[in-house]
């Protein structure tokens, strides 16, 4: 099974589909603009949040750097509170473990809160293939599940759809959908809420992701804006939490600083509307909660990232701020990336998890190196530098077309000496005279833009000429 799902269509096909979709273009611009404005205002109006961000950045880096003892501590705490921990190396391991638990308990119906890790390991597909009924309960995830699509935004999975499309989707795919008389947002939400309520009450197993794992107490923290994780964690008999290794934080002090950041950076709120904390299954004294709680710690390439030059990217808290400011994301949306992880963060982690063979086109074609992502990132991850690093990896691994590689080599060689530079100026002039401009890299430019000719006398030629003239005079 693949480490990260990918859309097999080549980049130009995905790109052109997005560019020619007027609904996508309109909704995408609206959503990214709204979230981005909210983020900027939130930090401006709440200096304490900005201060917490500085501390959060350091604590999160520190936790990632030294994660092994912290993970061991979390594991020990979870076990002490009656939970069970399983370390999963691959997506297949995750699926196999959860299926085994489900089968042991005679589970039929499963409900989920929003989790990018479950998207990464294609958990729904794995479970459905074995005959389990799985229902997403986050509104955006519910919508894309009905549409059989992948999320188009880390935070807002259905950001590519407008309300008319969602109304039509409900009518086509949900029983009794003639109820959906209106296409206004409260009406659509109300409809989904009623439908989901039935799923909540009939489910035997709940599955959450985890935004944070607090080592101090072994607590999995899930933040939502809809409250659905509260129901997922309290109603079904069996509870599973799938948590990436990088979600580890040291203690509650660190958590308090870090937990504000996805809310501030993602949606412009001081705190997400709901914070769900799981510290164990139902104890003998308590009257609510699941009989069993299993925490699946997901590696799937994370240990390798941790041990390599891209460790900083593991500080990501999946707030989506980098997507909202990225000029390329604003053009093509998440589906353009062909990965469930889109935007600048996806451009870095998709190839790191899923391999350069499959995702090498992301750093190459989907970044103008404008630094907007790094500026927006609450964890100050050097995404542009990492994207350039991945480009260099493609060069080192010889993944670039040979002709392009040769052009760069000749260019670098020529321009590292003044004689080579002057010769290349002469060559460019000859090429111009022969109308040979539409070759190599320049051809890409000239398809849509004019290019002035190389000056009859370049500045350096002119300056040198002038110096000689002055010396003679």
């Amino acid at each position, binding site marked *: 099974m693949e480490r990260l799902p990918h859309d097999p269509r080549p980049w130009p096909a995905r790109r052109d589909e997005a560019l020619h979709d007027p609904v996508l273009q309109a909704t995408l611009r609206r959503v990214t603009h709204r979230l981005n404005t909210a983020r900027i205002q939130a930090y401006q109006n709440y200096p304490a949040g900005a201060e917490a961000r500085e501390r959060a950045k350091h604590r999160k880096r520190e936790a990632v750097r030294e994660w092994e003892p912290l993970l061991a501590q979390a594991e020990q705490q979870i076990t002490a509170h009656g939970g069970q921990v399983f370390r999963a190396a691959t997506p297949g391991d995750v699926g196999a473990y959860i299926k085994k638990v489900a089968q042991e308990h005679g589970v039929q119906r499963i409900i989920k809160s929003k989790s990018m890790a479950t998207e990464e390991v294609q958990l729904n597909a794995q479970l459905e293939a074995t005959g389990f009924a799985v229902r997403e309960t986050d509104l955006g995830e519910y919508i894309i599940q009905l549409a059989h699509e992948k999320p188009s935004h880390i935070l807002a999975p259905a950001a590519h759809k407008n309300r008319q499309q969602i109304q039509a989707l409900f009518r086509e795919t949900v029983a009794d959908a003639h109820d959906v008389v209106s296409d206004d947002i409260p009406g659509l939400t109300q409809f989904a809420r009623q439908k989901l309520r039935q799923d909540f009450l009939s489910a035997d197993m709940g599955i959450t992701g985890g935004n944070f794992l607090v080592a101090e107490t072994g607590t999995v923290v899930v933040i939502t804006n809809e409250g659905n994780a509260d129901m997922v964690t309290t109603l079904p008999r069996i509870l599973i939490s799938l948590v990436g290794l990088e979600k580890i934080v040291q203690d509650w002090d660190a958590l308090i600083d870090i937990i504000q950041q996805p809310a501030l950076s993602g949606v412009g709120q001081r705190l997400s509307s709901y914070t769900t904390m799981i510290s164990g299954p139902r104890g003998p004294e308590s009257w609510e909660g699941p009989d069993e709680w299993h925490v699946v710690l997901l590696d799937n390439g994370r240990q390798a990232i941790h041990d390599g030059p891209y460790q900083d990217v593991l500080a990501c808290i999946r707030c989506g701020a980098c997507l909202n400011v990225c*000029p390329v994301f604003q053009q093509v949306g998440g589906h353009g990336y062909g990965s469930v992880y889109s935007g600048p963060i996806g451009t870095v982690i998709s190839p790191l998890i899923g391999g350069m063979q499959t995702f090498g086109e992301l750093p190459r074609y989907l970044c103008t*190196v404008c630094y907007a992502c790094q500026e927006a990132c609450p964890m100050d991850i050097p995404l542009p530098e990492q994207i350039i690093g991945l480009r260099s990896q493609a060069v080192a691994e010889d993944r670039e077309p040979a002709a392009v590689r040769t052009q*760069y080599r000749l260019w670098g*060689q020529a321009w590292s000496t003044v004689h080579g530079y002057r010769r290349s100026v002469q060559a460019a002039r000859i090429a111009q005279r022969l109308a040979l401009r539409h070759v190599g890299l320049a051809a890409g430019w000239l398809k849509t*833009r004019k290019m002035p000719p190389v000056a009859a006398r370049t*500045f350096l030629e002119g300056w040198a000429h002038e110096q000689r003239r002055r010396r003679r005079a």
Partner: protein
Amino acid sequence: MPQAAIFVTCLVDLFKPQTGYAAAEVMERHGWEVEVPISQTCCGQFAYNAGHFAEAIKLAQHFIEVFESANASTIVGLSASCTAMVAHEYPELFQREGANMGLASEEVAQWVQRATVMAERLMEFGEWVHGQEALALPAVKPEKVAVHHGCHMRRVLKAMQPTDEALRAYGAELVEYPDETQCCGFGGTYSMIEPTISTQLADAKREALSQAQAAGATSLISGDWGCLLHLSGRMEYEGDRWPVLHVAEWINQREKMSAQKKGE
């Protein structure tokens, strides 16, 4: 007499020599002795951004050698992104990639040191002109302009303010337009490798700029010929007519106009 060496940049040298002359004229008018190291070529940013580190390091070494032999200690760069490349990326580049490119560890340390010294000598043209007394007479009518700061200017050098203030001191009225912070889509060789997205972004920028134009901006000004060649190339292709100028050219024009007024 203060001295400065001009870091021309390859794009100005090859395509826009008038920008180089304008910068030299302004600097001389302010009483600076101008030096142009004639062996300079390109800072290597094109190669660096595309991940071709071996080529970037070669060009960085050439740059450092050329400017180390300049007489002037101050270096004035005619592009914000090239200035950012030298000042911010060179030391990092040698540090991270030097060993991979076959440099011994003591050589890496030396190049990092030389790059760090170079970074301290370098300033971008807008910063330089901001440090000078403006030579504009109030009698010269203010002019509405649209300014595009490239992303390296905005987010790496973080030095838009000196340029903006210098332009205002010369009577510029900076017209605001939507999404000014947005990338124009140039991105070095990205503009050639992914022309479709690059052009989409240029068109978004043109659309935003058309509002500045409608509000009376007479020209588009930037401290980066990278962005400007891309934007003006697209404008020309689409038949837009709007003067596009480097900061140095616009300021030179203003100073000449002032001198004329004074002479009258």
